């Protein structure tokens, strides 16, 4: 289900030609649209190639329903972090503390639930609040104190890691309540008659397709209402079919195993939510504006400090969520949890199209970048490549992705 939304955001890229689009060939239009979002389509294609490569290499094991489920669960926390990280990087900042903060929230969760037996929903809310506060503290120093985010979050990285070890006294704490484990590891409940497929997942998938089709048509009609050029009907339909096929494939894959993991739903909601906010909400625009040109944004009346502060609060909350999912998945809070997560999330963002100087990137890109890393991890595990070589290969992929971007920009002409 993540591919469905995945394909959604780049697709409505508005039509290029102002005048006579009718004369151009369909292929030309498709290529035009792709060139405009070169980075994202490039990575989407790269992701497809990587999936295909490992699917062949593992004799199809990669795409077994069970493995697809696993892939989602294994990477959920990195994907959650990557979405928040993308916002931070678009705004022109960086957050090195999220790995430590993930571990810290895990330890808080253990203190709340294992040591003090709080009901898990209460503990979850408390943990998210602690994450928000941790983010707020860092955000305060960055936005209002004017200390570079690299420094503040580098300090945070040390502080949260240290506090984790203090809270856990170097021990691993567990187990967590069953309810929480189900959220992190479980699937949607089984309902209805036996169809050999997971009914609720099927239903959800079909609903999703219907929703996407409805949205696309509504969007098209709205554009026409405003007398704006719309892409030709055949291109539009082609896009709809591609979207529908992608959703359907993933739905069938998941439905033929245990159904959609609950974490996947959380991811989907976050992706759609953040994607919408970044594209359509005023605050989203303001984030791009301060990352693209801070002085100009200030002179345009953007409340840059407040926006920066909120971005870090948000990052803190997402780190808390990732910490909860991670702790619940392994059913223990460990002082070594979340090691290098910040680097994975940052790498995912840059693979997915972020720029060091800020102002560029999409939440969807972060997900694509995260999936590239995730599929690489999973695929290499399946074919038995050791973690030593895995790191080398992931490093090369990061270098290649950003290198491609730089090369492509240079070719287009600055």
């Amino acid at each position, binding site marked *: 289900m993540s591919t469905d939304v995945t394909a959604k955001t780049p697709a409505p890229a*508005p039509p*290029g*030609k*102002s005048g006579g689009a009718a004369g151009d060939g369909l292929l030309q239009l498709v290529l035009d649209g792709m060139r*405009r979002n070169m980075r994202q389509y490039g990575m989407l294609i790269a992701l497809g190639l990587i999936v295909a490569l490992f699917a062949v290499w593992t004799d199809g094991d990669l795409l077994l329903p069970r493995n697809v489920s696993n892939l989602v669960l294994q990477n959920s926390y990195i994907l959650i972090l990557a979405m928040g990280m993308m916002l931070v990087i678009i705004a022109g900042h960086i957050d090195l503390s999220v790995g430590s903060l993930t571990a810290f929230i895990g330890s808080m969760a253990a203190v709340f639930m294992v040591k003090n037996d709080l009901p898990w929903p209460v503990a979850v809310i408390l943990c998210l609040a602690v994450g928000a506060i941790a983010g707020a503290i860092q955000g305060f120093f960055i936005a209002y104190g004017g200390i570079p985010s690299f420094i503040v979050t580098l300090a945070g990285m040390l502080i949260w890691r240290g506090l984790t070890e203090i809270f856990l006294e170097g021990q691993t704490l567990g187990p967590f309540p069953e309810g929480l484990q189900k959220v992190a590891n479980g699937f949607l409940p089984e309902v209805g008659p036996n169809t050999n497929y997971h009914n609720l997942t099927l239903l959800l998938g079909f609903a999703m397709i219907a929703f996407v089709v409805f949205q696309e048509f509504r969007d098209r009609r*709205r*554009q026409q*209402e*405003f*007398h*704006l050029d719309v892409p030709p009907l055949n291109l539009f339909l082609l896009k709809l079919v591609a979207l529908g096929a992608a959703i359907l494939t993933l739905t069938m894959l998941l439905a033929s195993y245990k159904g959609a993991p609950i974490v996947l739903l959380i991811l989907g909601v976050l992706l759609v939510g953040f994607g919408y906010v970044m*594209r*359509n*909400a*005023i*605050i989203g*625009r*303001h984030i*791009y*504006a301060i990352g*693209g*040109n801070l*002085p*100009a*944004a*200030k*002179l*345009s*009346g*953007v*409340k840059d400090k407040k926006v920066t502060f909120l971005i870090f609060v948000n990052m803190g909350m997402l780190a808390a969520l990732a910490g909860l999912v991670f702790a619940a998945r392994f059913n223990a809070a460990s002082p070594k949890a979340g090691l290098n997560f910040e680097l994975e999330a940052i790498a995912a963002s840059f693979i997915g199209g972020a720029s060091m100087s800020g*102002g*560029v990137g999409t939440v969807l890109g972060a997900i694509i970048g995260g999936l590239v890393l995730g599929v690489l991890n999973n695929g290499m595990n399946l074919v038995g490549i050791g973690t030593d070589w895995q790191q080398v290969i992931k490093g090369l992929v990061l270098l290649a992705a950003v290198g491609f971007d730089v090369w492509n920009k240079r*070719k*287009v*002409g600055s």
Partner: protein
Amino acid sequence: MAGPVLEMRSIVKTFPGVKALSDVTLTVQQGEVHAICGENGAGKSTLMKVLSGVHPHGTYEGDILFEGEVCEFKDIRASEHRGIVIIHQELALSPFLSLAENIFLGNEHAKGGFIDWRETLRHGSELLRRVGLSDHPDTRVADIGVGKQQLVEIAKALSKKVKLLILDEPTAALNDEDSGKLLDLILELKKQGITSIIISHKLNEIRKVADSVTILRDGKTIETLDVKAPETTEDRIISGMVGRDLENRFPDRTPHEPEEGAHPALEIRNWTVHHPIDQQRKVVDDVSIEVRRGEIVGIAGLMGAGRTELAMSVFGRTYGRHAGGTVLKDGTEIRTKTVPEAVKHGIAYVTEDRKHYGLNLIDTVNRNISLSALGKVAKRGVVDEHEERQVAEGFRKSMNIKAPTVFEPVGKLSGGNQQKVVLSKWIFAGPDVLILDEPTRGIDVGAKYEIYTVIDQLAAQGKAVVFISSELPELLGMCDRIYTMAAGRLTGEFSRAEASQESLMRQMTKDKEVSR
């Protein structure tokens, strides 16, 4: 004069999708100052990049002959080796290195890989003297003004044994005094046998220093004129650049009749601002100005007069430390402590530096236009993209913004079109008072006229316009009233009838020495 030193024959340079140069021929005589002018996008900078090897041999068609030999430069070093040095519009000095270190950067006096400081200092100070600078070679570049930095660039060129010096809009960032010095230096170098090519928008400069001028338009050479010939007038050059006879450089304007009794739209009283770092220094000193609806009021002043500082400190205190004064809108005192407050009270400030303070260059036209008034195309915090696009399309047509679509990144547009985007952005915010800071800086004649027309229309719609400019002709052509500033103080106020270049300049240079 011993024949041509440089000949560029039928140069064609194509970028993906754009033919930047389509048959340019340029002949520069030995020992002359040769001006190149043309509208933005005419291909001036591209031509110089071809000449200096930024675009290496093989990426363009045509021949370059320097001192009679065919040259095939593969990079800048190759052209510099032959004595062709280009000084770009944006200065390329390292701010925290000394003058001498900058002069010899990449070309150091060294023994076995270590800097020879004695020789660096000796030669450095010699070169600095040659360009008329008395600063110590150990001074940091960051500690001298832009005008002097430009001269350091020339010293750097001299260190490379320059034969052909190319200056790309060298006076764009300089005040009149520094510009004058620079132009004198170019003439001085000419006496020493150095040939110069100067790219400039400023026709009076061309008249002052150049021997001949080549006019480019749409990537083609239009003509080469002898500047000293009597028939080469400014209007003649302008008509060559724009390809039409420019009868009037300014739109016909019915002067504003101030209505009796009504309060001014904006009134600034006794405004004083201190320098943000050196807090003893008054950058704006007890300035009071007013502007009425429908009126265009100019503020003239040399660089450092405090015009921009006045405007920015009023607009959300975005410059310096406020030390007194009030702002009144329609007779009532208002707070303009933050930008959102100023915008709420209907004030807009269009910056002089559109690239750094006006636009998000990597974002699209439509998103730049809507940024300062997103609330107008949004409901409950959610932007209606279609409405936004429609608004932007409207401005694209009405302002004649030359962009293929409103989804074009602003950074890809020419300066004039970027300026139109900044103006659109603030017109869309719907202000009552517009403060325009150098709205026509660095843009070509045709686009200037379009911008003047827009300003005129804004005033006709009843907006109050404050027009800050260094170009006196445009203030005289556009304004109903003109204030002059010098060294942070208001030094004069002229009606349209009273003002002349001479009278304004006298007030603009008043007391300058005393306050320094």
